[in-house]
């Protein structure tokens, strides 16, 4: 670090250029962090899943329901501790644009299966005691400004009609990846409102097993029971179920990776160019340094360090900006959920880590050519060229 002042002098020689370069790297890394956060937010469901929870659905697709009668049979499967069930409701609040996760569930088992749902016992009892009640996540409640006791009309698209739900509880999620943008109400309420032929149908069953190692045996046992029935089942861990959902989105990650690589590469080219121009302008200075006795290796390190500092500064600014912007937007209750697809849009610490690593890589790559050119510079010819 003895030469820090020298490097600093180089960087401040053209303040405008340094500023522009740092800014363009910062923008690239801001984009990198954003795109990666889109990906990690899609995966939030996987991170929030519990290895002792299994999901049972119709083998063909989630769209097909299972009979309610499966419940008592599932409870008898060895290894199963608790059975819950619910239907994806798929409605909207007031306007078609207001869509979020809505589940019609079996109330009592919900809290046993999902300890992630944190709610006061008084609110919980109030919810369980009333068939037309509901509980909603804190984020959702904040977004629409609901209060306890409010009647929330939810219009069904799968279950026709507008359903009046009284808000009896507000829950918080125990982990940052769990969904606080959801509303839960009673399966029984919906079931009673359905015509004959659409009664007693269940979208998914949730099973709790004693330990993750029981999961494969329980899954196989459940699927074997219904293998030849008209409604065969597919049982998998919650993690696998969530992963299946993301697979359905198609190759989003590939598209984002293509975009991200193009961005990083474009800015890398820009940075390489700037570093080369900066070094070219200083040909005579470098020749003088060498005349003064600076070795080739030292000159190489000084020029490379300059590129690294510029790059890392851009990295810190870009990643920091991404972190700040998205935290602030969430804090200001700005809706980043995209209709429930990203229940938790937040920049993960490892995303910032990868971003900084990338900045380091860009610094190395952009400093390489000018550093070697400077190291190989012949004093005599360089001084002559300038004169």
């Amino acid at each position, binding site marked *: 670090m003895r030469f820090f002042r020298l490097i600093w002098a180089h960087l401040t020689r053209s303040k405008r250029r340094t500023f522009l370069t740092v800014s363009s790297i910062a923008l690239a890394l801001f984009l990198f962090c*954003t795109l990666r956060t889109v990906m990690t937010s899609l995966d939030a469901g996987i991170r929030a899943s519990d290895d002792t929870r299994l999901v049972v659905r119709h*083998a063909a*697709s989630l769209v097909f329901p299972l009979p309610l009668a499966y419940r008592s049979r599932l409870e008898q499967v060895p290894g199963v501790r608790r059975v819950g069930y619910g239907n994806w409701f*798929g409605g909207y609040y007031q306007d078609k644009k207001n869509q979020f996760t809505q589940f019609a569930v079996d109330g009592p088992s919900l809290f046993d299966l999902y300890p992630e749902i944190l709610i006061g016992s008084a609110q919980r009892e109030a919810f369980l005691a009333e068939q037309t009640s509901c509980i909603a996540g804190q984020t959702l409640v904040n977004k629409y400004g609901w209060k306890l006791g409010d009647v929330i009309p939810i219009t069904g698209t799968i279950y*026709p*009609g507008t359903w009046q739900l009284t808000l009896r509880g507000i829950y918080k999620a125990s982990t940052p990846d769990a969904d606080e943008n959801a509303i839960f109400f009673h399966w029984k309420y919906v079931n009673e409102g359905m015509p004959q032929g659409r009664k007693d149908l269940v979208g998914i069953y949730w099973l709790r097993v004693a330990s993750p190692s029981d999961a494969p045996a329980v899954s196989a046992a459940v699927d074997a029971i219904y293998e030849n029935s008209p409604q065969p089942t597919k049982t998998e861990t919650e993690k696998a179920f969530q992963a299946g959902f993301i697979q359905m989105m198609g190759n989003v990650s590939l598209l984002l990776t293509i975009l991200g690589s193009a*961005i990083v590469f474009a800015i890398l080219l*820009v940075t390489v*160019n*700037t570093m080369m121009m900066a070094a070219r302008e200083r040909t005579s200075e470098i020749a003088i340094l060498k005349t003064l006795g600076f070795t080739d290796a030292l000159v190489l390190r000084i020029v490379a360090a300059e590129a690294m500092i510029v790059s890392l500064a851009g990295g810190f600014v870009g990643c920091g900006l991404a972190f700040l912007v998205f935290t602030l937007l969430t804090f200001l209750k700005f809706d980043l959920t995209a209709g429930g697809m990203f229940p938790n849009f937040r920049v993960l610490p490892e995303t910032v880590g990868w971003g900084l690593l990338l900045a380091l890589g860009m610094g190395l790559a952009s400093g390489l050519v000018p550093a070697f050119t400077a190291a190989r510079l012949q004093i005599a010819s360089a001084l002559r060229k300038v004169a």
Partner: protein
Amino acid sequence: MAGIPIVYNLRNLAARRVSTALTALGIALVAWVFIFTLALSGGFQAALTSTGSPQNAIVIRKGSTAELMSILDREVAAAVSSQPEIARATDGTPLAASELMVVWNLTRKSGTTTNVVVRGVGPKSLALRPTTHLQQGRMFRPGLDEIVVGKMVSERFRQCSVGDRLKLAGREWTVVGVLDSKGKTYDSEIWGDVELFMPVFDRPVYQSLTLRLADASYLTPLKRRLESDPRMNVEVEREDRFYAEQSGTMATMLRVLGLFVTSIMSLGAIFGALNTMYAAVGSRTKEVGTLLAIGFSRGAILTSFLIESVLLALLGGVIGCLLALPVRSFTTGTMSFATFSELAFRFQVTPLMLLAGLGFAGLMGLVGGFLPARRAATMPIVDSLREA
């Protein structure tokens, strides 16, 4: 006095070959990303908007936002089919098809799984979609365990080539044909006989009814009469509008993503162009002084440097466009929220998009070149001539 010849700019760009190439490539990549995202959202939207026809109407249950959630009883379907506004086939029967739609989990060739739309169709279904035809094989025979699959399904999923046997609803079905609907959503569907599908999939009701209007203007009276009939409880929508609405959420999301990425990225590239042009101006201080001394106006100098910057950016734009051409052959699939299943589509690169990419690149050059050009144009003659 006349402007500075463009050849001066071209030679300058050629003289600083490496710098020109790096800056142009940087801008090329930005233009490429711009076109890429346009092609992505354009392709998705085109698949849906091209699907409907203004001549057709689709009938679904009131309150359901999409076919999948709709239910139409046989009686309702029969009543709708007998409406006078419906066009007639050559044999005098109404051109209308009641259809069943379910989604089924299939395995992609890559091994991952996703939902695919399985549509039970009637004898008029194909006639209602004039641009859809069999690309390979033949149509299924009603009553037999036969299906035809969309082109994209055939390309992307296992067991979906002609002659393959595919398991659906506990039965094995022989794939007898491949449908080509010219990029419409039917390319991502599987079709079979609706009367056979109903018992096999245990669905005693239809999901939707598609009909051809004898005249496009008949939509309004038909819609008014059916929707006001409480026994029907249906919604009537022009088919093209129905599909266009379905593209909503996803297309908007893709467009927002594209806009967000390209606008931030272009700012980065403009910074790069600024650096390059400032360096160009800086290293040619003496030249600028000379140009001024021999009588070129300051306006001519400003224009000249702007032209140089725009030329540099356009070079990048052209490279970006060339790189974007192969994007046309990309196909991808994503989930359509309306059907809860995969909609595969081809990226769409239109001449307009390429032009937009080129214009975008030019704009970056103009913005990035302005400040350095102004600096060149405002140099004091004496000082600039004295400089090294």
